[in-house]
């Protein structure tokens, strides 16, 4: 008996070891001596040899003799020789024409005196793992494709919404123009034949056409904002606020209002959209201070670590703090249509734009009958600096 075979048979735990080796799932294990003869193998190796080479292996048989295909025998011998030379290494073996994939770990076998007495091979069947990996890759590609499809669907939906918006503008406004225009023509042509009440009722018809028109304009503006894509650039916010105030205020308003524009910081945002924010907030402030003594509109801002809060204050009619949450809802109004013009979409548009920028909006009544509307914008590198 060689030293190697002694090493294995002498082990008192041999039967335990054998049970473990045989019981390992997906592991093919065999040990060879320096002449490529089996010192040991587990059950999986025996069945693999039967399946692949139609060989019934026994302890003492040469592995190489069992391999009838010379090219593979050469490859196997090279690997065994590397292990016999003292090298531990891992190799991958794909069986041509099948999905079967093995990972073979080769290592030399030492006796008690550290002499190499053979080679050990532990092969793991990676076929299932490998096919699972391929499946994950396929799923990822599929997912990516679906993401692209979804993006295209979204773009198509937005396009449809955009064309819907321009169609309602065109198709709904034409009849309104007719209602307004023909009522006016009746008034002009037949006014003398109508009594005062008849004339009043015709005027109501025409006025409502104009109101309906405002509703449509706001609705379309809201749809447009809803599908808008942000094009953020650095904005000189103080200049923008000043320009938008003067655009919103009539000459009469300007002369009656004390406009106090504080030193507000710059920001990064979409200029077209943020102009709408200022325009809506200013026209509200102007509208709700109309006819009141000592009209004041004030703009200020404060900066925290992460955001800039812009505040627009006025001393107008204000609102009941209990209803503040309703202000930013579409078409919700806290004042009757008779007293103040506007359809009630302006603040909904403001909210939508600010949220698109990652900010928040709010409103509250302050002490001293001051109304405050505020919006926040996230602070970025470019927005933190003060104006020179």
């Amino acid at each position, binding site marked *: 008996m060689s030293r190697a075979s002694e090493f294995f048979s002498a082990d008192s735990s041999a039967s335990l070891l054998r049970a473990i080796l045989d019981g390992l799932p997906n592991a093919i294990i065999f040990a060879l001596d320096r002449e490529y003869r089996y010192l040991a193998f587990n059950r999986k190796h025996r069945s693999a040899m039967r399946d692949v080479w139609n060989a019934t292996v026994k302890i003492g048989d040469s592995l190489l003799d069992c391999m009838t295909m010379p090219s593979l025998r050469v490859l196997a011998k090279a690997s065994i020789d590397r292990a016999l030379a003292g090298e531990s290494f891992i190799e991958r073996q794909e069986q041509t024409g099948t999905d079967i994939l093995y990972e073979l770990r080769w290592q030399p076998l030492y006796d008690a005196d550290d002499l190499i007495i053979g080679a050990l091979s532990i092969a793991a069947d990676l076929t299932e793992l490998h096919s699972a990996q391929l499946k994950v890759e396929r799923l990822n590609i599929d997912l990516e494709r679906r993401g692209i499809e979804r993006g295209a669907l979204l773009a198509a939906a937005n396009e449809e919404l955009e064309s819907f918006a321009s169609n309602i503008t*065109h198709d709904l*406004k*034409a009849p309104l*123009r007719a209602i307004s225009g*023909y009522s006016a023509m009746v008034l002009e042509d037949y006014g003398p034949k109508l009594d005062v009440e008849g004339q009043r009722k015709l005027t109501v018809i025409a006025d409502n056409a104009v109101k309906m028109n405002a509703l449509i304009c706001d609705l379309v503006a809201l749809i447009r904002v809803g599908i808008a894509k942000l094009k953020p650039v650095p904005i000189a916010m103080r200049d923008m606020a000043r320009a938008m105030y003067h655009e919103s205020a009539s000459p009469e308003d300007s002369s009656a209002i004390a406009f106090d524009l504080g030193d507000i910081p710059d920001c990064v945002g979409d200029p077209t959209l943020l102009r709408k924010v200022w325009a809506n907030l200013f026209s509200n402030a102007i509208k709700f201070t109309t006819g009141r003594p000592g009209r004041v509109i004030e703009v200020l801002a404060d900066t925290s670590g992460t955001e800039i809060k812009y505040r627009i204050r006025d001393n107008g009619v204000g609102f009941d703090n209990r209803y503040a949450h309703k202000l930013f809802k579409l078409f919700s109004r806290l004042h009757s249509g008779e007293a103040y013009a506007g359809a009630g979409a302006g603040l909904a548009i403001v909210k939508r734009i600010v949220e698109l920028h990652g900010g928040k909006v709010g409103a509250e009544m302050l002490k001293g009958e001051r109304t405050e509307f505020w919006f926040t914008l996230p602070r970025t590198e470019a927005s933190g600096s003060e104006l020179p």
Partner: protein
Amino acid sequence: MGTAKQVDILLVEDNPNDVELTIRGFSKYNFGNNIEVVRDGEEALEFIFARGRYQGRDILDKPSLILLDLKLPKVDGLEVLKAIKSDPRTKSIPVVVLTTSREESDKIASYDLGANSYIVKPVDFSKFTEVARQLGYYWLLLNESP
């Protein structure tokens, strides 16, 4: 062709109510006597380039002003505008786009193609007649064409 009718304004508009309102608006200030109405883009091109239904009209008998709606049957307003402004015989005719569209893209496209002005039709009739008055006053009285 002694019968050639003097045309001050060529109104390109398919909505009959808008046609009536526009004529009414211009007539109110005595600018409505020589308005020719065409109902779609194709007819507009036939009139302007004196062909089809308007064969025999003198192409050099230019209207003082073209009022052009953008949403038109057959040939749309922007195409009509492009045809007018890219032909040396017609490109000097002032074209005012008179439309319902407030769309930025329509405005940009109109000015790019050479529109002389872009006006959104007001719903309020008194504003509408004011637009007609100002257009008539400016383009028919003040403006000098080559």
